[in-house]
C-alpha cells in the first residue's frame, strides 16, 4: 500500500539500564484511527513521549512519509505536525472559545480582527460539528467542553497525527458520542489518530486497527474485526514473564480500621467500603471511573459527602492536614510534585513530617533527624544510602520508598497507595511490594489504587473493581485470575467470575 505517515523501526528506549521499549516496529497510516492498548508499564507512555519529543529514543528510527526525522524537543514534534492531547486542558481561560480555537493562527498582519477570528472559529466548529457558544470565556467551560475546544485548537494547528491519551476518562456518555464524531471528522480530513484507552468497547467501535503492547514490545496488531475481548486479553497479559513470586498470605484481622460510608462526590455514586486492620484492598477500574475520587476524598483534596471513619470514629476530612490528623497516609502517584521536596535532601524529606517527634524543646534536633533518616534508609533499603543527597537525584523507585519513609515515624492507621510502582524501575518493585505487605503485617489498613492487574494480584487480599463511579465487583483475591480481572476492567459489564 502507500507509504505510512509514521513508521517506527526497531525503536528502543532504556532508562539507566532498564529496557522499557525493546524494539518497536509499528506504522500509523494516514487517516487511520489506531488504537493502542497495553497494561501499565507496557511502554505506551514512553512511546508517546518519544513521538512528542519529550524523550529521545535510545536507538531506532522514526520515519515520516518514508523519510527519517529527528524529534528531539517538543517543538520538533509541533513542526512536524505531531500533537498530543493530555488530560490537563491547554486553554487560555480569559479568552473566548473562538479566540482559543484560533490562537496562534490568527489572520496575517499585526492586528487582531475579532470578527474574522470569530468567523474562522465558527467555521472550524461547524466543520467538526462542535456546538458551543464561540463567545463564552474558556474558563466557564466544563472539563468535557474544554477538551472538545482543545481538540478544535489542534484542528487549526494542522496536525497530521494526533495522540489522544484516555480522552474519555472525564467524559459522560453523550460527551463521548460528541468526541467520537469529532474524531471521525478528523479522519475525514486525513488526520491520523492514535487512540489510547483502557476501554475495549471504545477501541472496538472507533479504531481501524489496534496494536497491543506488552512488556516493551508489540505483542500483536489487530484489524477492526479482530478486536475481541479474548484475543486482546491474551495479547495484553504477559505470560512469558515469570509471575512475581510475591503474594498476600492473608493478613487481615477482624477489626475494621477504615470505613467509607456512602462516600459521594459528583463523579462517585454513594460508595461504601470497609478495610480491616492488616487488610490490603486493591481498587482498579478504567481511568476516570472514579478511583481518583476515593483518593482525593481520603487525602483531603476534594469535597465529598458521606462519612469516613477511622477506628470507628467519624473524621471529617476537609484538607490534607485533616487527613493526616485522622491517621490517613496518602502516597500519591505524582510523587515529585505532590509528596517530595526535590531540592531538599533525602534526610530532610523523610524527617519532615516527623519533625515534632524529633524536635527537642521546639528546636530541630539535627542529630536525631539524621539518625532517623538513617534508620529509614536502612529499613526501606533506599539506594544509594546517601541521606544528604538532594531528593531529585534518586530514581523513581527510591523516591517512592522515601515517600513511604515520611510516614514510618507517625505510623498512620491507613495507607492509600496510588499506582505505587508507576515510574519505578523493575528491580525496586518487589522491594516496594514487601514494604507495603510489611505495613499490613503491622496492622495498618492499606488501599492500593492501581490500573495494573498484576500489581493488585500480587498485593491484595480483597479486590474492588470500579466502573462509572460505583463498585461493579468486590471479591477476595483468591477468586480472581489475571484473565478474569483484566476482563472486568476493560469491559463495562463484569462477567460472572469462575473461581
Amino acid at each position, binding site marked *: 500500500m502507500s507509504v505510512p505517515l509514521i513508521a517506527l523501526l526497531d525503536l528502543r528506549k532504556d532508562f539507566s539500564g532498564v529496557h522499557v521499549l525493546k524494539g518497536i516496529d509499528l506504522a500509523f497510516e494516514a487517516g487511520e484511527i489506531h488504537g493502542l492498548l497495553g497494561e501499565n508499564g507496557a511502554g505506551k507512555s514512553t512511546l508517546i513521549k518519544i513521538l512528542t519529543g519529550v524523550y529521545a529514543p535510545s536507538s531506532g528510527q522514526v520515519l515520516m512519509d518514508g523519510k527519517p526525522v529527528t524529534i528531539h524537543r517538543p517543538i520538533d514534534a509541533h513542526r512536524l505536525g505531531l500533537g498530543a492531547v493530555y488530560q490537563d486542558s*491547554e486553554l*487560555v481561560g480569559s479568552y473566548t472559545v473562538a479566540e482559543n480555537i484560533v490562537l496562534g*493562527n490568527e489572520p496575517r498582519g499585526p492586528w*487582531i480582527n475579532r470578527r474574522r477570528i470569530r468567523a474562522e472559529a465558527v467555521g472550524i466548529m461547524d466543520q467538526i460539528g462542535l456546538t458551543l457558544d464561540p463567545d463564552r470565556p474558556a474558563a466557564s467551560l466544563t472539563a468535557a467542553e474544554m477538551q472538545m475546544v482543545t481538540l478544535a485548537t489542534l484542528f487549526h*494547528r494542522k496536525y497530521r497525527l494526533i495522540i489522544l491519551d484516555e480522552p474519555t476518562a472525564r467524559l459522560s456518555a453523550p460527551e463521548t458520542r460528541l468526541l467520537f464524531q469529532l474524531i471521525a471528522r478528523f479522519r475525514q480530513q486525513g488526520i491520523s489518530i492514535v487512540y489510547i484507552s483502557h476501554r475495549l468497547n471504545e477501541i472496538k467501535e472507533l479504531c481501524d486497527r489496534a496494536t497491543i503492547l506488552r512488556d516493551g514490545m508489540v505483542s500483536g496488531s489487530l484489524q477492526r474485526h479482530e478486536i475481541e475481548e479474548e484475543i486482546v486479553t491474551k495479547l495484553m497479559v504477559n505470560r512469558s514473564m515469570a509471575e512475581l513470586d510475591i503474594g498476600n498470605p492473608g493478613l487481615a484481622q477482624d477489626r475494621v480500621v477504615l470505613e467509607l*460510608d456512602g462516600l459521594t462526590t459528583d463523579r462517585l455514586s454513594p460508595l461504601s467500603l470497609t478495610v480491616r486492620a492488616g487488610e490490603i484492598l486493591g481498587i482498579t477500574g478504567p481511568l476516570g471511573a472514579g478511583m481518583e475520587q476515593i483518593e482525593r476524598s481520603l487525602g483531603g483534596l476534594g469535597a465529598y*459527602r458521606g462519612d469516613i471513619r477511622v477506628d470507628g470514629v467519624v473524621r471529617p476530612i476537609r484538607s490534607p492536614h485533616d487527613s493526616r490528623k485522622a491517621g490517613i497516609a496518602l502516597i500519591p502517584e505524582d510523587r515529585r510534585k505532590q509528596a517530595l521536596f526535590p531540592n531538599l535532601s533525602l534526610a530532610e524529606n523523610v524527617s519532615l513530617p516527623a519533625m515534632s517527634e524529633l524536635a527537642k524543646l521546639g528546636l530541630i534536633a539535627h542529630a536525631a533527624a539524621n539518625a532517623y533518616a538513617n534508620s529509614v534508609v536502612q529499613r526501606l533499603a533506599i539506594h544509594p544510602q546517601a541521606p544528604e543527597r538532594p531528593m531529585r537525584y534518586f530514581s523513581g523507585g527510591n523516591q517512592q520508598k522515601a515517600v513511604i519513609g515520611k510516614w514510618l515515624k507517625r505510623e498512620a492507621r491507613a495507607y492509600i497507595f496510588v499506582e505505587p510502582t508507576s515510574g519505578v524501575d523493575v528491580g525496586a518493585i518487589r522491594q516496594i511490594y514487601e514494604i507495603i505487605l510489611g505495613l499490613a503485617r503491622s496492622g495498618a489498613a492499606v488501599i492500593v489504587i492501581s490500573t495494573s492487574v498484576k500489581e493488585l494480584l500480587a498485593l491484595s487480599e480483597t479486590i474492588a473493581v470500579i466502573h462509572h463511579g460505583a463498585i461493579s465487583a468486590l471479591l477476595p483475591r483468591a477468586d480472581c485470575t489475571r484473565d478474569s480481572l483484566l476482563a472486568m476492567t476493560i469491559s463495562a459489564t463484569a462477567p460472572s467470575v469462575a473461581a
Partner: protein
Amino acid sequence: MTMTTTAVVPPPTQAGAKGRSRNGLHFLRRWGTIIVIVLVGLLFSKLSPYFPTISNFNNILFSMIVSALVSMGLTFVVAAGSFDLSVGVTVTTVSIVTALLIPYTGMAGGIILALIAACLIGLVNGLLVTYARLSGIVSTLGMMFVLGGINQYLTNGYQVPVAYGEVAFRYIGQGRVGPIAFPVILLALVFIAGHILATRSKAGHYIGAVGDNPMAAYYSGILVYRWVTVSFVLSALFAGIGGIILTSISSSAQPVGGEGYLLEAFAAVFLGATILGKGKPHLLGTLLGVFFLYMVSSGMNMVGISFATRQLFNGLVLILAVGANALLNREEIHLKFI
C-alpha cells in the same frame, strides 16, 4: 432530593434562591470599583467647594501624567505575567539622558535617542526574564539598582538643566492648548495608541494569552519569550515617554525621584484590574486607577489631611485593590505567595 448521609461540605444551594445574590455579586464585580471612585469623588466635593471644579480636574490630570504613563507600561508586563520593579528608575534615567543629549543632538535627536535607551533597558529586562531564566522580580530589582547607580554617575548627584532657549522642548511639558495642558493631550494620545495595541494588535492579544496560560500559548505555537520581552520593552518605553515629559515640565532632570512612581504604578495596575470586573490588568482600568489615586491625593490635600495619612491611605488602597483582585480570581487551592 433526600440525603441520608451527613454533609461534610454543604451541597450546592438551589439555583433560584442564589440567583439574585449572584446577579448582585456580578454587578458589584463589574461596577464596584467605579462606584467607589464616584462615591469618593462625591465625598470630596461635599467636603471642599474647590474640589469639583474644572481647574482642579485639570490639575489632577496634569499631576498624574508621568505616573499614568509608567502605570500603563507596567500594565503590559503584569498582563504578561511578570513584574517590573525598574519602571520608576527608568523615568529618571531617561530624563537624565534627554537633558544631557539635547545640547548635542537637539530636541528631536535627544528624544529619539532617549527613547531608544528606554527600549534597551526593557530589552535587557526581557532577555533576563526569558532566556536567562531569572524571575521578573529579581532581575528588575537588580536593574533598578544598576540604573540608580548609572543615574548618579551621569549627574554626580546634581540636577541637569535644560537650556531656557529650548522652547519647542519646553512646550512638550508646559504648553497649553486652550484650557488643556499639552502633556495631557500627549497622555490621551499615548493611552489611545496603547489601548489599540493592547486590544486590537497581535502583540496585545499574545501578551494576554501568555500571561493567562503560558503553556497553552506555547502549545499554540506562540513565541512566548518574544512577547514577554516585548511587554518589558513597552513598559520601559512608556516610562521613557514619562521621563521626557517630566524633563520638559521642570526644564531639568533630577538625579533621583523616579522610584516613587513604582508603588503608585503597582497600586494603579492592580486597582485597575478590578475595574469592570476583568480580574486582569487592562489599560483603561489602569488609567482610572491612577486617576483615583491622584484624585484622592488632591482631595485630601484640600481637606487638609496630612501627607502621612495620604501615604497610609495609598498603602491601604494597594492592599485592598490586590485583595479585591484575588477575590475576582479565586483559585481552588491558593499556594502562590510571590
